[in-house]
């Protein structure tokens, strides 16, 4: 039954073998005293060199190769490439941490990000493949006709993809700064180089084949540490099968620890601290002046006495670092108050669905959970950089098959992520809680230095209570190798995996942005008579400009990765999903309807995110426009409103406008295979 391997499969088999041999060699070298830093460098160099090699081999000057890889990527490999394209830094590094922090509630990401592929398979992929265009705005332009819809689509594609690509480059910065101790900003530009070597010369063709290579690395890197950890804890190396058992242990530990007197005391102390901040904020600006005066008095007293210079300098620095004005004080103290308040809450049980003290609270959680799933599924089925991958298969049937492979390859990671979270929680509850702070395991200290773990012994008993520990979500995946006591080479592997995840997604996104600009705006609208050669020159220069721009924004460290990515889903979902789906399944949808629906959808999502998430935009000089969420829905699920409004607008406006005759031919083409006469 086994078919002989194709040439491509053989290549990637050698490649995987080569990578495993490389890891083995580093493991041996580490035994012989190779310092961790060098191992980090070796992984960074080796993987980026591999990507660069593939990128150079796949260079092309053919337009169809550059935009859609010549439409000859087999389903299996397209599935792998989509997997890497899809799984971002947020999936690789952030998701397990989110699941750790929010337990069941975090599973919305797992369901949403996989369930979306069912929508892609059923509603979009085969039809996109049949229309034989190059980009998503192209598809909309062909269906509805006219440049205005193309421009709106380009705008939305860039808006969603740019936010997303910044998050990826940010992720590269985090990884390189941790594992090879590069400065964050330098790490960002190393990432930029890594992205450009893949996409600059070969466009989609090069990106496809590097993404396959990146998928292989990222999946090995993701599963290895947790498999070893699982073997250590349960004796079974398949974490997905056994973590249910560990989850039960976690639940027992939670029940015992959450109500222990020390925990209750610590939470009470944090609550008091939050109250103090609340009072200080109420009494601004007086409270700030008081604070400054008190520090000055203390400093003067110390100076008058025979105190150590060091103490005086420390106090002076404290005074210097006080907020400069009441405005700043309010921002800072509010943050401190919320963080203390957060720690004063009783933690949630990991397995509990929709936790809340009252029925009403539980319902809010439930609504948000479902709203988030909705947004993430629809967003998945609308992100241009994923959809464009289904243009690249040889046939319609292979486009369908490749969605299956995509989901299978993506599933491997998403089914593992909750296991990561449960094992990490087990470790924290059984080996950190109630342990003297001086005797905490080494990994805690190491990550405290980087600032991803923080411990504050607020009740001064020298013992760690759960509420005294705060973990950055990113730390769960990054620290698992150390938690399981594995050699540094495994940590290096994880870094390489995270890097692969971030780079592959960034590549796909950058290509989407540049092809929207060069193909849709420049070629289709500005200069339809441009020569192929010139189009590629434009495309490549734009790629460079956009990449540098994204890296510059990422170097500013804006927001947290996950919330930024969640916005992209709402934006893409509300812009594209209704117009695409109705464009395929509803003959009556008109250009005006689609245009209105896209504009209304995106605007509503943006409006909701802005007003609920922020209260002011300092650089525009607007403030005080914050509002209460509708139906208690968090801004990360803003797309819920945008998508529904988008659908409604398209239907209403289409029915109010004249039907357009042009769409029929197009619909016949995309609804029937091959354009063959039936």
């Amino acid at each position, binding site marked *: 039954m086994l078919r002989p391997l194709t040439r491509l499969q053989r290549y990637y088999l050698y490649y995987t073998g080569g990578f495993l041999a490389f890891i083995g060699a580093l493991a041996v070298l580490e035994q012989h005293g190779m310092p961790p830093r060098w191992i980090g460098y070796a992984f960074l160099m080796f993987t980026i060199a591999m990507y660069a090699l593939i990128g150079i081999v796949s260079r092309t000057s053919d337009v169809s190769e550059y935009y859609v890889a010549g439409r000859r990527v087999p389903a299996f490999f397209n599935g792998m490439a989509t997997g890497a394209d899809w799984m971002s830094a947020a999936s690789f590094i952030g998701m397990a941490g989110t699941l750790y922090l929010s337990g*069941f509630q975090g*599973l*919305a990401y*797992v*369901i949403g990000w*996989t*369930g979306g*592929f*069912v*929508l892609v*398979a*059923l*509603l979009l992929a*085969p039809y996109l493949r049949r229309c034989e265009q190059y980009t998503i705005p192209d598809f909309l332009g062909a269906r509805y006709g006219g440049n205005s819809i193309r421009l709106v689509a380009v705008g939305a594609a860039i808006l969603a993809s740019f936010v997303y690509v910044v998050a990826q480059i940010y992720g590269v910065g985090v990884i390189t700064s941790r594992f090879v101790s590069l400065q964050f900003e330098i790490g960002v530009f190393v990432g930029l180089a890594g992205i450009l070597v893949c996409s600059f010369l070969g466009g989609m063709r090069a990106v496809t084949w590097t993404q396959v290579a990146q998928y292989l690395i990222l999946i090995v890197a993701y599963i290895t540490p947790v498999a070893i950890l699982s073997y250590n804890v349960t004796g079974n190396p398949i974490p*997905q*099968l*056994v973590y*249910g*058992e560990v*989850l*039960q242990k976690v639940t027992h530990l939670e029940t015992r620890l959450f109500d222990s007197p020390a925990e209750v005391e610590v939470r009470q102390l944090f609550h008091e601290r939050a109250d103090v901040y609340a009072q200080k904020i109420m009494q601004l600006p007086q409270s700030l002046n008081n604070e400054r005066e008190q520090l000055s008095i203390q400093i003067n007293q110390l100076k008058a006495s025979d105190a150590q210079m060091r103490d005086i300098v420390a106090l002076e620095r404290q005074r210097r670092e006080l907020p400069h004005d009441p405005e700043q004080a309010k921002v800072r103290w509010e943050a401190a108050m919320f963080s203390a308040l957060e720690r004063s809450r009783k933690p949630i049980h990991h*397995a*509990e*669905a*929709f936790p809340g003290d009252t029925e009403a609270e*539980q319902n809010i959680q*439930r609504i948000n*959970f*479902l709203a988030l*799933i*909705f947004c993430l*599924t629809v967003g998945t089925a609308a992100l241009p950089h994923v959809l464009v991958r289904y243009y690249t298969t040889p*046939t*319609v*049937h*292979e486009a*369908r*098959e490749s*969605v*299956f492979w995509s*989901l*299978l390859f993506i*599933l491997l990671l*998403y*089914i593992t992520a*909750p296991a990561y979270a449960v094992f990490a929680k087990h470790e924290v509850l059984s080996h950190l809680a109630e342990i003297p702070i001086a005797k905490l395991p080494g990994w805690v200290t190491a990550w405290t230095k980087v600032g991803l773990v923080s411990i504050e012994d607020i009740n001064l008993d020298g013992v760690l209570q759960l509420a005294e520990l705060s973990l950055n979500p990113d730390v769960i995946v990054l620290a698992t190798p150390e938690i399981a006591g594995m050699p540094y080479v495994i940590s290096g592997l994880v870094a390489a995996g995270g890097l692969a995840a971030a780079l592959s997604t960034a590549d796909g996104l950058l290509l989407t942005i540049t092809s929207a600009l060069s193909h849709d705006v420049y070629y289709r609208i500005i200069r339809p008579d441009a020569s192929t050669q010139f189009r590629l020159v434009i495309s490549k220069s734009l790629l460079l400009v956009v990449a540098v721009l994204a890296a510059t924004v990422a170097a500013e460290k804006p927001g947290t990765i996950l919330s930024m990515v969640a916005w992209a889903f709402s934006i893409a979902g509300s812009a594209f999903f209704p117009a695409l789906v109705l464009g395929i*399944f509803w003959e009556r949808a008109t250009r005006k309807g689609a245009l209105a629906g896209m504009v209304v959808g995106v605007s509503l999502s943006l409006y909701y995110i802005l007003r609920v998430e922020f209260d002011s935009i300092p650089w525009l000089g607007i403030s005080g426009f914050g509002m209460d969420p509708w139906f208690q829905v968090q801004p990360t699920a803003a797309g819920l409103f945008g998508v529904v409004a988008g659908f409604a607008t398209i239907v209403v406006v289409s029915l109010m406008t004249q039907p357009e005759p042009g769409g029929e031919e197009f619909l*016949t083409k995309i*609804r*029937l*295979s*091959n354009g*063959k*006469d*039936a």
Partner: protein
Amino acid sequence: MKGKRHLYWRKTRRLTFALLLVWISVTFGTTWFARDINQIVIFGFPLGFYMAAQGGLVLFLVIIWWYNRRMKKIDIEFGLEDE
């Protein structure tokens, strides 16, 4: 000719919407009751947690697999298969 095309599209559409309904009931239906079905334990997991972390995902895969299989059959039936 026109009638045959029409039938192909009708069959495709019916399959699509039927599977979409299955998908909705898995994604939103079971999830809505996650709290209640968490009482049941399966492979050591509370069922609600299991469905969201593993069971649902496998069902998604099955939906796509089934769709591809049926579509291949429909394509052949109407002489629309690739190559």
